[in-house]
């Protein structure tokens, strides 16, 4: 079935279209395009967050939600599971008032060793500067799904060597 290819083509076209508009690729224009891509991913993530967990029972804790992202969401969109999920909780103590508890800020690192949207580009260190464009939509996707499931978060992506990439999810405790 050609389903994965359709999304990949659409995504490539989206990125190409947004970058073709920019005659002078200064930092300002690039940022808007990245924001636009992330915004689109966010809306799609919100819809997926509603549709995918339909028959599953309610999530009991944050880790369940993250596991759902790694397994069900990734399989639905990219037809493969996320390769690794690591937690990286940092304990933050902003103001040391007597009687306050240290609130751990949940940080999760999701690693994908062969991200489908990057696999076609190159293998290794070539085109490392071009990689962030192709990750913005997916960051928005993760953020949107998390927001429907009730978790406010900040998602950033980093690439060390194509096609492996890491998504860092920082849960913001209100």
């Amino acid at each position, binding site marked *: 079935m050609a389903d994965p290819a359709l999304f990949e083509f659409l995504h490539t076209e989206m990125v190409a279209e947004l970058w073709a508009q920019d005659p002078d690729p200064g930092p300002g224009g690039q940022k808007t395009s990245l924001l636009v891509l992330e915004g689109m991913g966010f*809306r799609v993530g*919100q*819809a997926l*967050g*509603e*549709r995918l*967990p*339909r028959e*599953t*029972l*309610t*999530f*009991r804790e944050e880790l369940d939600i993250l596991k759902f992202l790694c397994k069900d969401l990734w399989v639905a969109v990219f037809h493969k599971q996320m390769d690794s999920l690591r937690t990286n909780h940092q304990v933050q103590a902003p103001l040391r008032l007597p009687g306050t508890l240290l609130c751990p800020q949940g940080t999760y690192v999701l690693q994908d060793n062969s991200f489908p949207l990057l696999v076609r580009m190159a293998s290794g260190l070539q085109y490392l500067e071009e990689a962030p464009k192709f990750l913005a939509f997916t960051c928005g996707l993760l953020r949107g799904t998390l927001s*429907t*499931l*009730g978790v406010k978060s900040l998602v950033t992506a980093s690439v060390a060597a194509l096609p492996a990439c890491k998504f860092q999810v920082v849960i913001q405790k209100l």
Partner: protein
Amino acid sequence: MAVCVAVIAKENYPLYIRSIPTENELKFHYMVHTSLDVVDEKISAMGKALVDQRELYLGLLYPTEDYKVYGYVTNSKVKFVMVVDSSNTALRDNEIRSMFRKLHNSYTDVMCNPFYNPGDRIQSRWTKRMLRVLASSGHS
């Protein structure tokens, strides 16, 4: 026969509320509003209980002398509340569950509509679909 259907957002404001006998709507709005407390109670009870009771369907929320109120909560904390006429005792649990499932499917479709902004009131052709669901539930 279901007389009122309401979809309530995560922040407890109504996204869609519709009742069949269009006079006396305020009474149903009030009933849905009071049932939200019961829903919250059930959700928090579910979180604390160590039993594997993580179902989406909440069941009968509370009965009054004329009506029975049923609840259902989704994974995104959107609540569906249905008010059913008490005189129709032939409506079984399964039928209520299937009505909620249809509601959930329609709500998911609305969410996937790119022209719909999450958090807005639902105004699309959903209203006709919902009225059809309500009317069809009368055949029991």
